[in-house]
């Protein structure tokens, strides 16, 4: 793929990358670094994308792979980033409520194990079991079992 369409593809799908960064890194700085790392890895591997699956599926696969594999900074050196807990766009009460609920959801998903977070993210973005199985490299049956277990765990975390 040429550079221009690639950049457009990333620009159109930056929400996916941002969500993965929010799930796998705690501070703004770490998220920014991971975002950059994901874009770099996408650019490195874009030639392996043959268009057999949706571009968003490819982006999810590379983003999750990068988030799980890349080096992290020493957690003991991590500073508490209170501003990360604050909504970025919360001028209206409705916005504030929406942001608070989104934060609560992300916080709940972050309590899952790292591989389960990936499956939950894919489920929340409405990917089919077949697509999730394709990304993770496992069977649809296995995914169905995992999803049922993850849903139970999320319900417990959110105390539904």
């Amino acid at each position, binding site marked *: 793929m040429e*550079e221009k369409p*690639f*950049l*457009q593809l*990333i*620009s159109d799908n*930056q*929400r996916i990358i*941002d*969500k993965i960064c929010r799930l796998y890194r705690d501070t703004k700085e770490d998220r920014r*670094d991971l*975002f*950059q*790392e994901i*874009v*770099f*890895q996408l*650019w*490195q*591997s874009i030639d*392996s994308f043959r268009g057999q699956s949706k571009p968003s599926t490819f982006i999810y*696969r*590379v983003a*999750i*792979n*990068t988030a*799980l*594999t*890349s*080096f992290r900074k020493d957690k003991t050196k991590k500073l508490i980033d209170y501003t990360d807990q604050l*909504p*970025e*766009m919360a001028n209206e009460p409705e916005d504030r409520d*929406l*942001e608070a*609920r*989104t934060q*609560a*959801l992300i916080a709940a998903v972050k309590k899952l*194990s*790292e*591989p*389960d977070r*990936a499956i939950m*993210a894919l489920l*929340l*973005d*409405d990917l089919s079991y077949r697509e999730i199985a*394709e*990304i*993770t*490299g*496992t069977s649809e049956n*296995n995914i169905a079992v995992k999803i049922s277990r993850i*849903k139970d765990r*999320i319900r417990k975390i*959110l105390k*539904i």
Partner: protein
Amino acid sequence: MELQEMKALWKVDNTTPISITEIEKMTLENSHPMLRKIKRQLLLEMILWIIILFGYHNAFDGAKRPGAINLIFVAGLVQAVAYNFAGYCAARNLIAGSDLSTSFHNYLKKLRRFRWTAICSRAVLMLGVILFFSYGLEMQTKRIVGIAGITTMFGIQLLLISMSWNKRIEKLGGIAESLKN
């Protein structure tokens, strides 16, 4: 919170948009935060090894030592430079398969191979340094204690390298296993 509500919340786009120019910069190796740090560190190490490689013969009386000792010392330095470069190349490519399980499986294979290369590379370098600098020395108690101390320090360093690799491989192995089952 029901699943449908979670899905709706997940899809809310509250990201601060990043411009195409910014994204373009992110594709460049030089603006990559982690690679830039690794590159700087490797470059410094490589410069140091290369300076030693070209200067050791005169500075540390290489001519007074047997060819085999010189060879082990030079081989230790050269392979350390080569290993550094290979490590940098490996850090550039994290994606090693068409799905997460395959990618993790291949990446872990690469890491396990790299762990042994890292340990052997450091051991050869340390052996070369100890042999080179201790050759021909009159062995007095002080010197023996000194060499034993340096060897112990090198041994501890090897152990720490090995432990840090094992920790990373174990963690990624756990993730790979969890993805599959």
